C-alpha cells in the first residue's frame, strides 16, 4: 500500500459530441483519448502540451468538473471516477488555476477567499482568523493581507493567495494548471521555490500542467507530452529532455527560446520545410527534415 502511486489514471478519455447545423450528431472530438499515467507520492508529474492537447480537460476530470467518457481515476488506490463531487474527495485534491486574476473573486477579500474551504469543510471552527493567518504565513504573506482585495495585490501575491486557499483543506494532491504562466520570470522563480518547499514540508504531490518546457525541466520529476488528446511520450525528466524520441517532443523542444549556448547545444534543430518552420501536423506526417 505504501509504494502504491498516489494518483493512477488509466485509459482516461473525454469525447465531446459535434453537432451539425441541424443539431444532428455528426461526430466526436476526442479531447482526451486513452491517457494513462501514475504519480508516485511526493513527486511532481509534468503534463506538457499546447492548446488543444487536452491537458486542461485532464485537470478538469481529475477535479471532478468534467465527467470522463471512459477510464478510471484512482487516488490512494480508491476509484474516484465520477465520485468527485463528494466532500471527502474535495479535501484530498485541490487545484491552483492559471490566472490568479480570475480565480480569485474580485469582490471578496483575501481572508474571505481563504475562508471558503474552511467553512465548506467545517475546518478551523472558532480559530478561523488564526488559521487564515497561518495559511498566509505558509505562503510567506503577512497576516494583514487577509483584509486586502485581489486588485491591491501583485500577480505573484495573488497566486500565493490561491496556493494558500488550496492548502486550507490539507490536500494530498495539488493540480497546478500553468500556475506561473501569467507571472514575470523573477516572480515565477519565487513561486516555484515556494511550491517546492511546501511540497517537502507537507508531503504534497503535484500534477504540473504547462507548456513551458524549460520550467518543466527544472520542476517535474517525470514528464508526459500530450498531443491532440494522446500521450505521445513519457519518461523521467532528464532522460526525456536528453533523448527525446517522438518527433513532436523534438519539435516542442526545438521551439523553446533559450538563453545560453549550452542549451542550444542540447536543443534539437527546428524542422524546416522550404526554409520555413514546419507545423506539428507536418512533422507528424513525416514531411519535414531536420536540418543541421
Amino acid at each position, binding site marked *: 500500500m505504501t509504494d502504491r502511486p498516489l494518483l493512477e489514471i488509466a485509459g482516461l478519455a473525454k469525447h465531446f459530441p459535434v453537432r451539425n447545423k441541424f443539431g444532428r450528431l455528426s461526430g466526436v472530438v476526442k479531447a482526451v483519448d486513452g491517457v494513462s499515467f501514475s504519480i508516485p507520492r511526493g513527486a511532481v508529474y509534468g503534463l506538457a502540451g499546447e492548446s488543444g492537447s487536452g491537458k486542461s480537460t485532464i485537470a478538469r476530470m481529475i477535479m471532478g468538473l468534467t465527467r470522463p467518457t471512459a477510464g478510471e481515476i484512482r487516488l490512494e488506490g480508491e476509484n474516484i471516477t465520477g465520485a468527485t463531487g463528494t466532500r471527502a474527495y474535495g479535501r484530498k485534491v485541490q487545484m491552483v488555476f492559471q490566472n490568479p486574476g480570475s480565480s480569485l473573486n474580485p469582490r471578496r477579500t483575501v481572508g474571505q477567499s481563504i475562508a471558503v474551504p474552511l467553512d465548506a469543510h467545517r475546518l478551523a471552527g472558532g480559530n478561523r482568523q488564526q488559521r487564515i493567518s497561518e495559511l498566509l504565513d505558509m505562503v510567506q504573506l503577512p497576516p494583514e493581507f487577509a483584509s486586502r482585495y485581489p486588485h491591491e495585490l501583485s500577480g505573484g501575491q495573488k497566486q500565493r493567495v490561491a496556493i494558500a486557499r488550496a492548502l486550507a483543506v490539507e490536500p494530498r494532491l495539488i493540480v497546478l494548471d500553468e500556475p506561473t504562466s501569467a507571472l514575470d520570470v523573477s516572480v515565477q*522563480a519565487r513561486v516555484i521555490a515556494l511550491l517546492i518547499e511546501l511540497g517537502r514540508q507537507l508531503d504534497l504531490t503535484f500534477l504540473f500542467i504547462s507548456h513551458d518546457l524549460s*520550467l518543466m525541466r527544472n520542476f517535474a520529476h517525470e514528464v508526459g507530452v500530450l498531443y491532440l488528446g494522446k500521450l505521445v511520450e513519457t519518461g523521467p525528466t532528464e532522460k526525456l529532455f536528453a533523448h527525446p524520441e517522438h518527433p513532436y517532443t523534438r519539435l516542442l523542444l526545438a521551439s523553446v*527560446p533559450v*538563453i545560453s549556448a549550452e542549451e542550444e547545444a542540447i536543443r534539437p534543430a527546428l524542422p524546416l520545410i522550404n526554409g520555413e518552420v514546419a*507545423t506539428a501536423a507536418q512533422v507528424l506526417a513525416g514531411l519535414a527534415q531536420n536540418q543541421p
Partner: protein
Amino acid sequence: MSDALLSVRNLSVDFETYGQVNHVLNGASLDVPERRHIALVGESGSGKTVTMKAIMGLLRHPPATITGGEIVFDGHDLLKATAAERDRLRGTAMSMVFQDPMTSLNPVFTIADQMGTILKYADRRLGRVRNRRERLARVHEVLAQVRMRDPERIARAYPIMLSGGMRQRVLIAMALLSEPRLLIADEPGTALDVTTQAQILKLLKDLVEERGLALLMITHNLGVVRETSSYVYVMHHGRIVEEAETSALFAAPKQAYTKNLIASVPRLTGGTDFLALGQSDPEAEAEAEATT
C-alpha cells in the same frame, strides 16, 4: 549615436491615478540604428510598454503626460513635430506589429478589407495615389512576403477562418504594407503556442534581415531577446538599468537586477536552483511588496 534611425532621449512620462502622480518613465534613452535589431526587455511595470506607446503616439493624455525628453525619428523630433509630419512617419516609415492576433483584427471585415483600408490611409498620408485594384495587388504581395501559400484566398478570408499563427502573420503583413524602415514588435507570438511562436519569430527574423529593416523588439522573454536581437536594453522601474551587445549581456551581466533576471530563467539543460532564487535577497522581496 545621433545618426540612429530612432533615438529616444531622456524620455519621462507621468501617470496620474486617483490624484497621485507616478513617474512611470524616468529619463529613458535608447537608440535603434538603421538595419539593427534592438530588444527592449523588462518585466511588468518596467515601463517598456509605455515607452512603446510613447514612440507610437498611443499614450492618452489623461492619465499620461510626457514630461520631458525627445523621440527623434529620422531627424524629426516626434514630440515637437507638426501633426502632419508625425502622421507621415508613424504608421508608415515606422510601423508596429501588434501582440494579440485575436483582438487586433476586426472580426466583421475580410483581411483584404482591413489591409486595404490601412494601405489607403498610409497612401493618403504619404500623398500617394493607388486605386482599388492596385491596393489589392499590394495586399496580395505583402501576404506572400509573410510566406502565405495562397495570398488570394487568405485575403478573402475573415479573421475567424484563420488560425492564431496565420492571424499573427497577417498582423506582420499589415505592418509591412507601407514599406516601413523600422518595425516595432510588441511581444509578437506570446499569445500563441510555443511551436507557432517559434515559426513567427523565425519569420520575423528572416523578414527584417532580407528587407534590411530596423527592428525594436519589446518583450519580457529573455529567450526571445537572445533569438532576435543583437543589442539589448534592460528596463526596470522606468529606467534603462543596463545596455549591452546581446551576447555580452548573457555572458556577463553587470547589474544585480539583470543578473537576478537571467538567473531566474529556467534552463532547458536543468540545474536552475529555484530554492536559492526563492530565498533571494530581501531587496527583491521588498520590491515585490512595493508593486502592490
